[in-house]
């Protein structure tokens, strides 16, 4: 294969936008997009609610400034303020750009793009297409990429960066359809592989493949990860599957009700009620359940999300997917009955440490979207800011890589590296006396994370979590791949994904144990208050001698001083 100028790993919103923008910036570049699924399958499609932008279509007094403030406050002041400024000021432009390319935004009576209220936002600024916003954005981007002739390598699983000393020379990836390890020599690589919240497995709203592949590859190549302890729990996952009921359901007026029939959010967020920020609402639900005010069922304890008062018409037109999912996965029609919900791991605020241009510490390596951490979400992401993040920073990373590509020499990956990697994969398939099953390890990982590194955290639990993860990483040495075939070996892919989750789980637990304060999504029962003096800073996790080492990084401040965060 001819060496590439840019290899983009991941074909979701961030990766596709990066590809389009890089082509636009310099049409002569040789660009590849690698994705382990067909790009239109990417998890961007699951984003239901919408994307925030201060278009002021709905609330005429909305401004970029207000969006910036809401985002910083929502982040519990851990976001870098210069990065948030980029995010929010680019927002109106990027929403209009998508409109110009064909995204079917829902419309208001005056035919402008519709906006609705969302958690933690002072104005209704969330642009949406019914409850399929992410899906339609992903379709639009994929269509435009097909139009522009982007080179796709579909069903390629990224394995590792090829690094010589400190110089990155490309990427190794497994061609899933043939089972061959292939080298993608390249001047630059952009990681856009999405989040890592699937490590919580059954207590996660994520797709099976949100296993943090890009973060784990970067981490193993010595690139630092930032703020990994911040995992957002979405308040309303379906009871049985953890699948998500969009915040839009509450945006449209849904109530949260405990078994006493009480709209309990009045006790936690008097003013915003159900539309408080996600971390607060998730903690409120969990508290209700822990204090015995949840409902009981064989499938676990839960709370009611009641939409019945909204009426059949509104539910059918604005929340059709939610209705369908409730019926398919819970057997409940929200027009008639409340939906059983409980908090579910949903989003990773942490990720590959990047600057505002998507650059990492390693020359030629960039990251964007949920995979990266700029950081614009700090300790807690606001609803409607994640689609925005992947669009804005996907585009920036694509542009930056295209502009800087000349700084890096074309890489050559030696054949021996391919042979070594092939051997490494084969070794999982060798029969041995003692072996571990993939499914058991993954199940135990999800359980220990949910129990010990979940919504409410404290030192003894976290120590247990850290021990469990270490033990699982040891046992992983003996994991066995039973499918020995080359063609489309999903058993092998699962085992490789598990490795990525295990490596990242260690950084999540380590960060959570170190951070002795409560901030945003990170709640320490033993340190219940935000401690700005000691902890108003990012944690940075680096892999040294096979284990995680924590460092720190200051938060970039700006116009907004630290304040107590109340809603």
């Amino acid at each position, binding site marked *: 294969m001819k060496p590439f100028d840019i290899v983009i790993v991941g074909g979701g919103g961030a990766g596709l936008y990066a590809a389009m923008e890089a082509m636009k910036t310099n049409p002569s570049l040789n660009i590849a997009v690698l994705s382990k699924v067909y790009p239109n*399958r990417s998890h961007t*499609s699951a984003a239901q609610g919408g994307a925030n932008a201060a278009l002021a279509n709905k609330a005429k007094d909305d401004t970029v400034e207000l969006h910036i403030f809401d985002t910083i406050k929502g982040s519990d002041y851990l976001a870098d303020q210069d990065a948030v400024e980029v995010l929010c000021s680019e927002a109106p432009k990027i929403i209009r*750009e998508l409109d*110009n390319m064909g995204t079917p935004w829902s419309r208001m*009576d005056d035919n402008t793009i519709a906006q609705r209220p969302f958690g933690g936002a002072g104005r209704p600024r969330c642009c949406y297409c019914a409850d399929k916003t992410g899906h339609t954005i992903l379709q639009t981007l994929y269509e435009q990429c097909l139009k522009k002739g982007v080179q796709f390598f579909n069903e390629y699983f990224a394995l590792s960066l090829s690094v010589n000393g400190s110089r990155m020379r490309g990427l190794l990836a497994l061609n899933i359809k043939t089972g061959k390890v292939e080298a993608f020599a390249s001047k630059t690589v952009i990681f856009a592989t999405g989040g890592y919240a699937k490590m919580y497995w059954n207590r996660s709203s994520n797709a099976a493949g949100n296993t943090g592949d890009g973060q784990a590859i970067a981490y193993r190549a010595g690139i630092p990860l930032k703020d990994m302890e911040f995992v957002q729990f979405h308040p309303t996952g379906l009871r049985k599957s953890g699948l998500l009921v969009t915040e839009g359901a509450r945006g449209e007026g849904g109530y949260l009700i405990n078994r006493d029939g009480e709209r309990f959010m009045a006790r936690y967020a008097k003013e915003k009620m159900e539309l408080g920020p996600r971390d607060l609402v998730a903690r409120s639900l969990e508290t209700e359940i822990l204090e015995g005010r949840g409902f009981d069922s064989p499938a676990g304890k839960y709370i009611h999300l009641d939409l019945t008062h909204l009426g059949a018409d509104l539910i059918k037109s604005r929340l059709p997917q939610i209705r369908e999912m409730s019926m398919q996965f819970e057997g409940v029609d929200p027009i008639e009955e409340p939906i059983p919900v409980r908090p579910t791991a949903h989003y990773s605020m942490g990720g590959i440490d990047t600057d505002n241009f998507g650059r990492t510490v390693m020359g030629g390596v960039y990251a964007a979207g949920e995979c990266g951490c700029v950081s614009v979400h700090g300790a807690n992401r606001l609803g409607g800011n994640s689609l925005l993040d992947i669009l804005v920073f996907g585009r920036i990373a694509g542009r930056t890589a295209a502009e800087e590509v000349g700084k890096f020499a074309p890489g050559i990956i030696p054949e021996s590296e391919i042979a070594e990697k092939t051997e490494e994969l084969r070794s999982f398939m060798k029969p041995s006396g003692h072996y571990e099953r993939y499914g058991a390890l993954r199940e135990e990982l999800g359980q220990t994370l949910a129990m010990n590194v979940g919504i409410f955290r404290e030192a003894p639990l976290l120590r247990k979590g850290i021990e469990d993860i270490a033990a699982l990483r040891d046992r992983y040495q003996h994991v066995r791949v039973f499918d020995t075939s*080359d063609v489309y070996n999903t*058993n092998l892919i699962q085992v490789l994904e598990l490795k990525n989750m295990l490596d990242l789980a260690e950084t999540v637990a380590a960060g959570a144990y170190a951070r002795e304060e409560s901030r945003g999504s990170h709640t320490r029962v033993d340190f219940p208050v935000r401690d700005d003096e000691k902890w108003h800073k990012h944690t940075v996790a680096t892999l040294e001698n096979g284990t995680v080492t924590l460092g720190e990084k200051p938060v970039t401040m700006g116009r907004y001083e630290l304040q107590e965060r109340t809603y």
Partner: protein
Amino acid sequence: MTVTEPHIEEAKKDITFRVFRFNPQIDSKPYYDDYTIQVERGITVLRSLNYIKEHLDATVSFRAFCQAGICGSCAMRVNGLSKLACTTQVWEVLEKCREPNVIKVEPLRNLPLVKDLIVDMDPLVDKMKHYSNWVESTMPEEKMGKKEFLISEEEFLKYDKATDCILCASCVSECSILRANSEYVSPAVLLKSYRMNSDSRDAIHDVRLAELVKDHGVWDCTHCYRCQETCVKSIPIMDAIHGIREDAIERRGMKDTSGSKHAEAFMSDIEKKGKLVEATLPIRTNGMAWTLKNLLPMAMKMIVKRRTPPPPPLVKPTKGIRVFRSMFREMSEHVREDHKSHNK
């Protein structure tokens, strides 16, 4: 007030999953493997397959990603019908088992088989490219992002349902034309084409339409409605196909393909006689040369077997043709009115 959960009876059953197996590296032809597991009510086909893969046989291969019915990865045939494994309840398909409690799981049809339940999606992507399944914006690139288009609710509603498509290819698998002709455009691509052509932001309506009316295009559909019946998002795909055809007739007339000529001849017969003049239908659809070359042997056989349709002068108008004609005219008028209001 306290609310107690009603007692839920968690019914369980032993279910056999008869799974289509094929590994191109080893197998010369496909076969089926049976896996019997205990399944609770409320469990989906995908969860059952996950269980089988984790506990019984790690080599069973299938795609799955979001597991929530939005990514489209896990489309497969369950008891002969294409659907998403992740949203299909085991209990729901039990009624359609040929053998009691045996569920047959097979890959989608009409796409090349890769392994077990996995098919190659590339042909579908290639067709999306061929038929320009994207909005070619009327906004020049350098002006993008500066202002939004104003789109009416009415226009949005035209393509709202079509944008629900998740490209799972269930319709592709069920399509009866694709079974016979793999080059056929495919229902999903027609749906997407219709969606693009109803978008006022798009600048290449006529280019796309010109491609759609060629051979293997929109006129090849035989209205079997299988695509629409199977659509996992309940999208009225046939409305889209009819939409493209009506648009084509309006903008291009009826001379594009044998399919459109066939439709025209069909309509004219019905109006004149209330039934078909079968003897000349092939000539009017495909021309004399084609008919002689392709249908002469069959015509000879029909003569021998005395099965030839009557010659045109012998096809008399059906009883009550006058009443029928006035109804026909009234209907045509309604359709015209309908289009006018649609295209406003």
